[in-house]
């Protein structure tokens, strides 16, 4: 987990918040920990997807600006829908995607794990931020964070270089293109 990246810092912050109260964890810390863990994965995927879709050299300011706009276009629900497919939590592959995937059981474990963890964390984040009737406990939150950290590690240590990773990242970006214009900065 890299501390230099936003997603690395968010995952680190999540663990810090989940473990800072030794005896009776404060609910606010646990809830913010879940939220940080989710946003760690969210920003990891947004970064990877936009960099893969719009490769750019550091000096290529036009492409970098396009990339930032594209990053703002990605929507949580669309990302969840795509992740459900790659996680094996849905079998409703869109017609354009199914032939590219080949055998539907062939999503490598580390990619499946990241996609699944993204789906699980997104729901937990929604509960943590909006549903005050849902209680969180330290055990529950630590395991959610560990899921996020393990998925991030698996991605970094090889999954991201696999062919299906590119397909996953493109599938995250493509639904966002219809929103691209709305997210462009005003002149």
């Amino acid at each position, binding site marked *: 987990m890299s501390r230099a990246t936003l997603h690395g810092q968010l995952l680190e912050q999540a663990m810090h918040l989940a473990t800072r109260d030794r005896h009776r964890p404060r609910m606010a810390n646990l809830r913010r920990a879940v939220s940080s863990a989710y946003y760690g994965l969210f920003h990891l995927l947004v970064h990877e997807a936009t960099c893969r879709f719009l490769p750019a050299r550091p000096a290529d300011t036009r492409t970098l600006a396009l990339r930032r706009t594209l990053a703002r276009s990605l929507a949580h*629900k669309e990302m*969840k829908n795509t992740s*459900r497919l790659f996680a094996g*939590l849905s079998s409703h592959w869109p017609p354009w995607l199914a032939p590219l995937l080949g055998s539907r059981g062939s999503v490598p474990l580390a990619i499946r794990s990241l996609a699944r963890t993204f*789906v*699980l964390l*997104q*729901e*937990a984040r*929604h*509960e943590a931020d*909006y*549903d005050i*009737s*849902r*209680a969180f*406990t*330290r*055990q*529950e939150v*630590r*395991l*959610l964070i*560990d*899921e996020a950290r*393990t998925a991030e590690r698996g991605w970094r240590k090889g999954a991201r270089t696999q062919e299906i990773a590119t397909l996953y990242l493109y599938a995250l970006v493509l639904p966002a293109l219809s929103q691209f214009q709305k997210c462009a900065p005003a002149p």
Partner: protein
Amino acid sequence: MDAFSAQHPSRILGGVEATEQATVQRLLESLTIPSDCPRVVSTLFSVRPDSTGDAAVWVWVILADREEDWTLAEVRPLTELIEGALTEGGVRAIPYVRFRTESEQILIDEQRTDPPDGRIERL
């Protein structure tokens, strides 16, 4: 071995949700937990749409207390067991499997404002 008690009979369920709830209850009751897994004290569940409107089932596995937290490696076989049982049992809802310890659950039960649909005690 297992006893089920409905916790919230007044909850209004749609037909599909009610059927799914009965299926989830049956599948969780029939789970055989391997002896090398952490000791499961009880299992709670709720069936309802998730935040984006997808059919979902939450399963909270209540684990025996111990000094240190249970690790992901220790609980993962339980997650896989439950997710596999639900999928093979025909449940199409997204499974959200979570873990708490027994003492944490006791504290929650004392203040609970959102009870689960069901609870399966494991003796």
